[in-house]
């Protein structure tokens, strides 16, 4: 759980492993002081704080970098249909998530990728229930504003349907949550 969160929040896998190691070392060092009924929330809070500290240190060391994880420039690549589009879309999605600011990134990862409940997120981030919803929706809207992600989606749709307009949309409200 901690590694999932760190992996989708940080650019390098090694950084995510370091964060995971630090979190669990802190866990055992503070074992007797922790409320064991809220262990998950404690772990996620420590992981979130560790990620934020890591990003802050990285920014201090590299002040010319505007964002910690710049999405890779994929404008020159050509896309063809099928799995390649899907893979490219997912790759760009991950990069876009990593470039989001906090707390949008953290809440998006916790809710949409890890499937944590609003209560768990609330306890982990120490924010109210309504704030979780607000930050989550704003994070998703920020992702939809990402032009590279949108263009990849358009390419994916064009390869699937051949026509992105005039299609009857079959929609129903169903909430999908990670198992």
């Amino acid at each position: 759980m901690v590694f999932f969160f760190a992996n989708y929040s940080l650019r390098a896998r090694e950084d995510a492993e370091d964060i995971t190691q630090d979190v669990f070392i802190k866990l055992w060092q503070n074992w007797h002081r922790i409320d064991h009924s809220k262990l998950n929330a404690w772990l996620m809070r420590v992981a979130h704080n560790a990620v934020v500290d890591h990003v802050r240190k990285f920014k201090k060391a590299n002040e010319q970098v505007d964002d910690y994880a710049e999405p890779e420039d994929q404008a020159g690549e050509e896309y063809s249909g099928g799995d390649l589009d899907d893979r490219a879309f997912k790759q760009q999605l991950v990069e876009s998530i990593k470039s989001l600011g906090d707390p949008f990134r953290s809440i998006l990862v916790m809710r949409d990728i890890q499937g944590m409940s609003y209560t768990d997120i609330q306890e982990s981030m120490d924010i109210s229930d309504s704030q979780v919803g607000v930050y989550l929706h704003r994070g998703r809207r920020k992702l939809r504003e990402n032009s590279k992600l949108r263009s990849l989606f358009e390419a994916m749709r064009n390869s699937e349907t051949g026509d992105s307009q005039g299609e009857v949309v079959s929609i129903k409200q169903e909430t999908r949550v990670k198992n």
Partner: protein
Amino acid sequence: MPTNTNESQCYLVQLQIDNFLDGELTPGQQDTFMSHVQRCSECAQEYRFARTMQDALIDMPLPDCHDAVLEPAHEIARGSLPTSEEAKDTPLKGFFDWLVSAPLAVRVGTPAFAVALLVVALLPLTPMSEPTQPQLANQPQNSVVTTPVDFEEYGPEDIARALLELNTAIDYLNRVNQRTESMIGGRFLVSPLRDQINAFLERAVLDPENPRENDPI
């Protein structure tokens, strides 16, 4: 900001896309949302984009880290936390496990019995109240004067009792002193003088014809 009714409706519907995806809309709001999206291609595109992104996020893989990453933490845990075997070997653990599983009467009675046993065991160690008057001079060796052992236990009554005993002891010593003085006086002063007087009187009796020469005065 939208300028006409259609644009404003699209604006509101697109604001509701995430609420719709999270199942937060009421049935009435759902109907309004779905009917608009089915009519409006722009909003339909926006909805599809949001839905595709949501599905992609849910389907994201959850990679695991290598076991070696957590090895330092495991070493700390092994050193600072008792292992399951150590916890089983604790002598009191078996007793507590039995106590937890025992009926309520046993769980309440056992500590109460332990407390009562402790009180009974400590009872002889508590200080007892003794006779206030010590035995007097006739039996000085057998006088039993009980005083509290611990100074913090002295109260006003104890102090008064101690003063009374002290006065009694002083009286006794005074009487012993007087008797001793009298004994000393009788032995070294009175007796010799008496002996001299007796000796003179005996001589006076032996020489009746010249009594004045034998008059010691």
